[in-house]
């Protein structure tokens, strides 16, 4: 199993929960697991939710379209907090030359409830741990 985030000692974790730390802490970013090409349920769900709400602009497997950026590339630079900020609030770049609008997904259950899963899936793609296409599940 590939572990992206370091394992946090239980005490620290408990403390974190009590104080609700800033999600920007890198060690708390969502993680994914890819083992022999098989992904965990969260990562698979991320793939699925991506297909539901993101694919039609950002292209198959996060690889970009003619008008929306490749998220495989974007996640090399965006951390989880920045990713969440864009997805929840949306982003508009409407000028005389550009007409790009990413909607706010803060109120979209299929996205907002699974933000971590979507991030994990895209991070796996971005880290080069997942190939194009549908990831394999343990029960396939």
């Amino acid at each position, binding site marked *: *199993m590939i*572990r992206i*985030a370091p*394992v*946090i000692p239980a005490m620290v*974790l408990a403390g974190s*929960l009590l104080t*609700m*730390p800033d*999600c920007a802490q890198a060690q*708390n*970013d*969502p*993680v994914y*697991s890819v083992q022999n090409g098989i992904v*965990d349920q*969260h990562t698979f769900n991320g*793939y*699925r939710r991506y*297909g*539901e*709400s993101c*694919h*039609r602009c950002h*292209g*198959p*497997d996060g*690889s*970009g*379209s*003619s*008008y929306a950026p*490749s998220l495989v590339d974007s996640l090399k630079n965006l951390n*989880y907090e920045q990713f*969440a900020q864009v997805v929840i609030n*949306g982003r*508009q770049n*409407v000028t*005389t*030359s*550009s*007409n*790009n*609008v*990413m*909607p706010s997904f*803060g*109120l*979209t*259950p*299929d996205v*907002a*409830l699974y*933000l*971590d899963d979507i991030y994990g899936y895209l991070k796996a793609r971005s880290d080069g741990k997942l*190939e*194009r*296409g*549908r990831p394999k599940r343990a029960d*396939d």
Partner: protein
Amino acid sequence: MIRNVCGPKSRMDQRGINVARFRTSLLGCSILLGLGSAVVLGGPAAANDELTKLQGDANQWVMPAGNYANQRYSALDKITADNVGKMHPVWSFSTGVLRGHEGGPLVIGNVMYLSTPFPNNVFALDLNDNGKILWKYEPHQDPAVIAVMCCDTVNRGVSYADGKIFLSQADATLVALDAKTGKEVWSVKNGDPAKGETMTSAPVVVKDKVLVGISGGEFGVQGRMTAYNIKDGKLAWKAYSVGPDDQILFDPQKTMSLGHPVGANSSLSTWQGEQWKNGGGSVWGWTAYDPALNLVYYGSGNPGTWNPAQRPGDNKWSMTVFARDADTGVAKWVYQMTPHDEWDYDGVNEMILADINVKGKPVKALVHFDRNGFAYTLDRTNGDLLVAEKYDPAVNWASHVDPETGRPDVQKQYSTQAGGEDHNVKGICPAALGSKDQQPASFSPKTGVFYVPTNHVCMDYEPFKVSYTAGQPFVGATLSMFPPQGQQNLGNFIAWDASQGKILWSDPETFSVWSGALATAGNVVFYGTLDGYLKAVDMKTGKELYKYKTPSGIIGNINTYMHDGHQYIAVLSGVGGWAGIGMAAGLAGDTEGLGAVGAYKQLSNYTQLGGVLSVFSVD
């Protein structure tokens, strides 16, 4: 494994807000539906013969498809198979917009009219003065609509009639402009983008009415065709694709399907509960009109959610050819091509009206190249099914179409319904893109042959459960697309015999052919490619006679006109649309086993964005 420790808190916050949003949406929905009943204001229509006459003048290109029969054919013959090799670009025009440019320009007299993707600017260009801009119309639309457009912000062109230019704006506003000045004459709201209702297709003027469809099949809209009076924008009729008889404008006894009356509640009885309210059947293709029969013809799109397990029944009348009375909107006949869709095979592709011999008998035919990979030849007077054959040999989801019932014989191994939710069905051909999408085919009355831009792409498809939220995607399936096994061309440009249901010749293309074709009396057929070439091929053999690389990939439609004694060929380039989503980075299968070849097939390595009109001629 440690998950994000901040997750639970933020999820609960989101859920709290979401519940409130859900309630508001449902309330809004029910109020709107209460008011949404169909309005039928029949009566004799004042005849508007102008367009019927103009469409016969080959010097102009007066409607999006060239003529009411949707033939995309021109009787012009100055550019021929012999001299097209000497064709060259003579002028070009940048639209100033980057996104996908579908559709194409109109030519009325000495003026060319064209529209752009969002923000849907309209230009009138003076052909007497090297394309100088006579006027420009810039709508003011809330850019939020961009986010609810399915597959890029395309607009498939404007229409002309009665001294007016009609524009379908992305935000579902229909606008009539003074063709001389570009000033707004009237505008009417035809849908609500907050519910995912948008407009992409070109309006079509029939007699004294302008007909517009609604897009939003991926957002659970209730699809419909609506007719407004061209004079003042007043609603004339509104015909939904799914719903009660009074909303779909069906006469249970007189509306026919394959020779039988449809009966009462023909749509409602094929949906569970009130699922029809998000039932899709959006209308975004090319509408044809037969003045002699006074019928308009168009198709409806996919049923709401791509997950078939969630919507039991045939889901009528999604995926259907409609023949409606042009004055009242009442359906004369219907034919559903893909009952209970399991693959997103929208039925919106153009209906081409052609008087041809079918199996030795002269027929008033309607020929339709469906997304599902079958080309249908119907009797357009009554909707009888005459021919249904595969126009891409790769098609495998059904073995054939039963000539009696009209139903496809679905192969269980490719049925996403049989597999059930959360089951990945592999190797289905065609992909959801269809063996052909909206990019319209052409027909030459001279040869009796159809010239068809096609896709050659397959898919894996896995449905899953989704919930409906107004204005949010209502998809419910993931899919991966790839070329048919052992093949590398993603498209073909074919010649089709609609009488026999046979491919006459087929030109392989690196990418899907996503441009509307043009057949001419000069024995040349024109089409554009995603990597940006305008191509001219020999009508008889398909042999390439000319090609020119335009500034961007072509998803627009070719047209032709005469000016000052010269025949011109015009096309919009500007890559995008669904093709721009699926192929910009190459297909999933490209990287599996094909290695460098796969990377080579990334469309982004060939072309970049940018809307440009290119005009060609022969000296």
